[in-house]
C-alpha cells in the first residue's frame, strides 16, 4: 500500500470494495490478458465509463496490485497499468481491531455516576439497566441518543455507584454485579461511551 497511514483493515476494506464491483471479474481478467492497459482502452473494452475504469485502476494501483507508467500519445501524456501481483489476498485481522493491552488498565479505573448527568436509564428485567438515553446539544438542536445494553453492561450499570456514593474500581463493580472477566471488554466499551457523554466520572 502506498499510503503508509492506512491500517491493514482499511486496505482490506478498499480491496474488498473494488472486488465487489459488477465488472471486477472481467476487469481483472483483462489485466491478466493484457501486458498493460490504459483506462480508456479498458473502458471501451468493458463498455463502462472511463472515470469508472480510471478509479478501479487507481484503486488497485494504490493497493499495490498494479504498477503504472507514463506514456505519451501525441501531446497528451497518460498512464498505462500492468499487473504486479498474480493473486489478491484479502485478510481481516479481527483480533487486531481490539487493543486488549490498551484496555487492560481499565479494570482498575475508579468510577461513579456524575452528578446531574441528565441521562435517562431504562430498567430491564432482573437487576439490570436495559438502555441509556443521552442528550446532546440544547434547545431545538437537542438530540437524543439511545444505547441498548448487553446483559453484562446492563448489570454493570445497575451496580455503578450513585453520584453521592464513593467511587469504586471497575473490577469491584463487576464483582458486585456477579460478572466474569469475559464481560470486561464490553463493560469498558460502555464506560468509554459514558465517559465521552460525561455520564460517569473517573478518579485518578
Amino acid at each position: 500500500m502506498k499510503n503508509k497511514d492506512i491500517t491493514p483493515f482499511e486496505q482490506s476494506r478498499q480491496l474488498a470494495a473494488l472486488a465487489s464491483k459488477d465488472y471486477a471479474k472481467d476487469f481483472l481478467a483483462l489485466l491478466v490478458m493484457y501486458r498493460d492497459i490504459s483506462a480508456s482502452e479498458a473502458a471501451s473494452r468493458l463498455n463502462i465509463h472511463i472515470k469508472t475504469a480510471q478509479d478501479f485502476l487507481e484503486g488497485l494501483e494504490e493497493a499495490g496490485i498494479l504498477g503504472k507508467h507514463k506514456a505519451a500519445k501525441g501531446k497528451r501524456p497518460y498512464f498505462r497499468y500492468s499487473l504486479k501481483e498474480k493473486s489478491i489476498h484479502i485478510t481481516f485481522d479481527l483480533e487486531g481491531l481490539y487493543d486488549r493491552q490498551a484496555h487492560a488498565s481499565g479494570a482498575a479505573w475508579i468510577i461513579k455516576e456524575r452528578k446531574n448527568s441528565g441521562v435517562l436509564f431504562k430498567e430491564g428485567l432482573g437487576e439490570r439497566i436495559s438502555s441509556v438515553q443521552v442528550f446532546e446539544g440544547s434547545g431545538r438542536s437537542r438530540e437524543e441518543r439511545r444505547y441498548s445494553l448487553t446483559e453484562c453492561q446492563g448489570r454493570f450499570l445497575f451496580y455503578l455507584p450513585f453520584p453521592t456514593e464513593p467511587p469504586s474500581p471497575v473490577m469491584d463493580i463487576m464483582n458486585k454485579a456477579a460478572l466474569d472477566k469475559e464481560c470486561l471488554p464490553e463493560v469498558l466499551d460502555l464506560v468509554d461511551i459514558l465517559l465521552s457523554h460525561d455520564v460517569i466520572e473517573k478518579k485518578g
Partner: protein
Amino acid sequence: MEQTSKLKPIQVGMTIFTSILLGAMIFGRIFFGPDGFYWTFSTAHILLGLIHFTVLMRTRNWIYLIPSGMYTFWFLTFFPPLAAHPQHLFFSIVSALFLLAFIGLLFSRRLEWRYKEILQLAAKPVTGTTDGFTSRPFPTGSAEFTREDAIKLARYLTKNVIAFPFIESDRVVLVIPEYMWVYMLFFKRSYEKGTYVAFSDSGQVTVRITKNDYQKYREELTFDQLCLSLGDLFKQFMLWSREGTSEKIFAKLKSAGKDQTDEK
C-alpha cells in the same frame, strides 16, 4: 425547637379534583337553580361511589363498602328523578347511617393514602443535602424473605392503599404513587415512571425514586441515603409482615402522619 416538614405541599391534584366537583355544583346552582344543584351533586356522588366501589373490588378491603354505600345512597337521596320514590325516606335514613360510619372511618384514618408519610419516613434519617439524583434504581442490599412473604406484604399494602403491587416472574414491585387512584382505576398500568421498592426472588431489595417524587422534598437530600432509607423502611415492613404483626406498618405510617401534623 420548631421543626418543619421536609416535604413541599403535595397531592395538590386532589384539591383540584374536589374544587372541580364543588365548582360544578355551584355552576349548576347558579345557572340551573336548585334542580341544577341536585343533578350535579348527585352525579358527583355516584361518580365517587363508583370510584370507591372499584377500590373496594381491587383492594378487597371491606371498609370501602362504607364510602361506596354512602355516596350511592346520597345519590339515591338527592337525585331529582328519585325525589318522589316510595323508598326515599329509607334512602335518606341509610345515607345518614352511612355518613356516621364514614365520619368514624375518617377518624380512624384508614382511608388515607400513605404517599406523604412514606416520603416523610424515608427522609427522616437523611441528614445530607448533596443532591445526586439519578433515574437509576438503587440496590439497597439483601433481606430475609421468600416470594410468598413478598406477596403477603404486597397484599397488606394494597389492602391498606399504602402501595400498589406488580407481581412479576422474578420479583414483587411495590409502587408508591402520589395518587393511588391512577392505579386503582386503571389509568396507569405500568410503574415505568413511578417510585417503587422491589423485592426480588434472589433476596435483593431495589429502590427507585423518580425525579418528580424527589422534587417533593424541600431540600436536595443526599440521594443514595434517601434510597437506602426507603429500602430500610420497606425491609422493616417486610419483617413485621413476616412476624405476623403487619398492623405495626399501619401504626408506623399513622404516627408519621401525626408527626407531620404536629410539626406544622
